[in-house]
């Protein structure tokens, strides 16, 4: 099972197994990784699952679709490596992915 490392704003690291096919958001929520709210449950409707992707992994991710791009425009503290974690599907190729969670989702 692919392993994903979530690092919170206080640099606390949590590495969890996430089944392929799940989203990076689900990997966090189902393993009680804090820092991701995901109020809408992954429907790309709320922009509360914002994460920063480790720069080394950015290009290995599927590109953002329009809806994600736009939702991110309005999330707080957006950077060039910002993504919505509900829109990243975990695949075996993403084994070892490192993401950071922001200070706040609101």
């Amino acid at each position, binding site marked *: 099972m692919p392993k994903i490392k979530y690092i919170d704003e206080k640099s606390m690291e949590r590495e969890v197994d996430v089944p392929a096919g799940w989203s990076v958001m689900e990997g966090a929520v189902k*393993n009680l990784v804090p820092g991701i709210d995901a109020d809408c449950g992954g*429907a790309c*409707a709320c922009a509360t699952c914002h994460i920063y992707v480790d720069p080394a992994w950015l290009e290995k991710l599927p590109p953002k679709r329009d*809806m994600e791009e736009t939702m991110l425009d309005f999330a707080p503290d957006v950077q060039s490596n910002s993504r919505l974690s509900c829109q990243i599907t975990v695949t075996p190729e993403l084994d070892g992915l490192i993401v950071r969670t922001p200070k706040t989702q609101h």
Partner: protein
Amino acid sequence: MPHRIVIIGAGQAGAQAVTTLRAEGYTGAIAMIGDEPFAPYQRPPLSKAYLMGTLERARLFLKPEMFYQESDCELILDASACAINRTAKTVTLFDGRTLPFDMLLLATGARVRRIKCPGANLVGIHYLRGIADVDGLNAVFQPGKRLVIVGGGYIGLEVAAVAAKHSLDVTVFEAMDRVMARAVSKSVSDFFERVHRAAGVNLQLNTGVEAFEGAGRLEGVRAGGVTYPADIALVGVGVVPNMELALDAGLPCEDGIVVDRNCVTADPAIFAAGDCTWHVGREGIPLRLESVQNAIDQAKHAAYAMVGRPRAYSEVPWFWSDQYDLKLQIAGLARPNDQVVLRGDPVSRKFAVFHLRDGSIDAVEAVNAASEYLVGRKLIEAGTRVAPERLADTSTPMKNIV
């Protein structure tokens, strides 16, 4: 601070209340009673990805099992409460157990409204509210089957979209003159009607269902004086709040359990959150909302009040629906006689409808238009005045609209 909190209802609001109570530092006992055999799960995907078969059951759950252990929350599932004794401060369950509480949260949600017409109990007539409902529907959801949907609301149309993709033969009956009439404005209804018809859905407006026909099992649906052959029927004609427990306990109810802005009922030890509440909206108008947003936010506010740090609830309501490749996102509540401004062209499958009152936005309905939705939501929150002609002008990006 209370020592023992009981939550009746194991849905979105119940799960959120546990999260927020612990985050706010509440250290007492929590027990949550749910009438389904499942820990709290997401309902929105039931009529979308779960029915479609692209999201398995394990992914519906809001929290992993260990959350309830770590949160020291006793889950009492497949059980329901039959009475609240406000004097003794106890909840009695149908199995005879009695749970004491210092504070009680009613997160009882809503249940489907049953249709009342001849044949309404035939085998083959389905409703959609919980996992078991969708599992039952899935078992018969096969290509070529004739599916009749009663009600052109969110549930009816989301199921119609999934069914059309699964190559079922779909007919939708809507008693009103447009679909989703309770939730969206006319131009959005018109748009979704065209989309469903283009996908092959037979959509019959102004048509109420008169009877279900068949010998024991559904064979046809009579509507508008005509009998339509049918293998399956799905009824989606709204929900009613689960407020009987509150009523029996003498708590005031309207179309929901009456709460104030801190989600407190008439009894200072009893709170309510989510679909079951009759509460005061942002505009001061009492209402009941059926939404994830309201369940989450009211549960948070109930928890704040329970731990003695109340903050008045006045969040902007938001809603969404997925049908085909379309994401409908709504923020705010439109009111009669609002000024309606269209931004973008529905033909492009990306547009928004703004509702303005006295120069500021009451509501936005956005189809595949996330920035219109998000900026709209922020402007509603702030009460900012916006020029209607700028909103209508798609050459002005939403970011620069004010």
